[in-house]
């Protein structure tokens, strides 16, 4: 191919290639949009979505597995024994959402059944005006927890909370019976769980 032939070939290539690109963009001009008008239209989140962690304080057995499993140590948990029983209740539960990386290890470590006390919700709008608002306390955490639907009916999962179990235990003690571990079996022993969740604190 001579110089002229090459020139013509180049010209043809250029023209046709540019026209082809335009054909693509023209086709796309008539296609449906793929974007979402976000605040007006909400994204449909999958069931496994990992958003802000929420906590149900009634369900928590204060085993500390979540705090130990957390790779970035954003969970600060304080509990106390309910006097005279083997059960514990929450005193304080702090989650520093600003440092949380939504890995979900806390949820995986949580031993409560049938619903986990700490669950990653579908909340993904995390912007706050003040950094201190990112430190979540129990009331906020409960709200977040409740924002995600639960398959089990409420009366069922709230049937065996540590407080109720403790009350039962105390009542039984008052009746003079030896505290049997009937209710405690519903809530597994914390020590074993902690070992499974990884001894982060150790």
């Amino acid at each position, binding site marked *: 191919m001579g110089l002229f032939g090459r020139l013509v070939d180049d010209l*043809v290539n250029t023209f*046709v*290639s540019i*026209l082809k690109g*335009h054909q693509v*963009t023209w086709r796309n001009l008539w296609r449906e949009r793929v974007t979402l*008008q976000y605040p007006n239209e909400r994204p449909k989140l999958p069931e496994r979505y990992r958003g802000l962690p929420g906590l149900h304080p009634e369900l928590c057995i204060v085993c500390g597995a979540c705090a130990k499993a957390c790779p970035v140590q954003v969970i600060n948990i304080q509990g106390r024994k309910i006097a005279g029983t083997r059960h514990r209740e929450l005193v304080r539960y702090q989650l520093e959402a600003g440092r949380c990386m939504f890995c979900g290890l806390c949820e995986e470590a949580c031993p409560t059944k049938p619903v986990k006390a700490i669950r990653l919700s579908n909340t993904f709008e995390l912007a706050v005006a003040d950094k201190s608002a990112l430190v979540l306390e129990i009331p906020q955490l409960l709200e977040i927890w409740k924002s995600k639907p639960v398959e089990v009916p409420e009366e069922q999962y709230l049937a065996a909370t540590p407080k109720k179990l403790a009350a039962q235990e105390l009542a039984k003690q008052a009746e003079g019976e030896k505290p049997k571990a009937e209710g405690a079996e519903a809530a597994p022993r914390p020590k074993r769980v902690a070992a499974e969740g990884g001894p982060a604190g150790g």
Partner: protein
Amino acid sequence: MNLPITLTGIVEGALAPLGLQGLTPLVVYLLDALIILLLLIMPVVTILIWLLRKMLGFIQRRLGPMRVGPFGVLQTIADAVKLFHKEDLFPANADRVVFALAPFLVFVPAVLVYVVIPFGQGDGFVTKDLSVGLVYLTAVTSISAIGIITAGWSSDNKWSLLGGLRSAAQLVSYELPMTLALLGPPLMAGTLSLSGIVAAQQSVWFVVPQALGFLIYFIAALAEIAHLPFDLPEAESELVAGYNVEYSGMRFGLFFLGEFANSFTICLVATVLFLGGWHLPFLGGLPLTSWQTGLATVATMALLGGGIWYLNWRRAGWTSATRWHWLGYVSAAILAAIVLVAGLVGFISVVITLVKTSLLVFVLMWLRGTLPRVRVDQLMSFGWKALVPLGLVNFLALAFQAATGIPTGWVLNLLFFVFVGWLLLFAWRKRWAYSAVS
């Protein structure tokens, strides 16, 4: 068409008691320029920017601006307000005077161009129909190069200096093929006045006998205004943003507006010089009443506007983001009414010109949505090795035709048409070595 009350009359009446009648033409010019700036350029540029973002969005399967006003029409105004609010920054070592001056050197010529452009038929639609209109056009557009290179230099930033130098080289190089291509229409029309050139296109638009010239002009003009395949002076991925890196606030806004005003200008000039200005296709030779022309134009406008509306509706649907859609229909109705009335009164030629221009603007946006950017040496070699020789051949053929009557120009363009036809018919099916790999 002349309005019953002329601007000149009003100004003269106002100045006469002061004994300053002599200044009337000057004041009329200034007022004319102001009116053009405020009533034409600003709204047109505003709408253009919206249109560009909308079209780009559609091409990319997005919606583009949707928040401010119906379908986001007022987005540009919101952006301008934001730009006005921004702090006007000066870099520490900048040459303050030059830095402050440069945006105006870019923006003012972009506006000055409109002085000679006939928007419609008759004296009322052109500020000053210079007998050397075409030369004026090229002269004024060449000024913006100074603004760009001084902007690049005065920012005291290496990237913007590089951008400024690039653009200076680019503007100077592409002025040559552009001017060569622009020589065609006046040669055929026998006048340099833009109104005269449009008038000469009554029977046949110059894009037919000057297809090659039109193509060269359009490509070179793209390079002149630094539009996408040639937007090297502000290649954001290479030079950050080129000459306007350091600009902020309304000074940046002026560059921005100037750029869009320029893209409107090149389309307008192409319309006036090659696409027959206010003449309608195939109807150029027919005597049409303003009614008929008006109806034809309304139909075109409805098609254009309806197209965009349809696209937007199809994508956005009836979400709450489009709850102001009725405002869109109202404004469309008002627009249609204006066009209808304009057709009756005689403004219709302006509307036709603008419709043609906006079709060309759409082509610009289409290009912008499709092409990558060329490299600086490729740009130069394309300009000097392809466009300049082609432009010279085209011009010589036409000049020979004008001097001797032998239709060399026609033959050349016939060949061009044959080439394009062959390209579309046969080469389209060719598979490329690089298309399917492995």
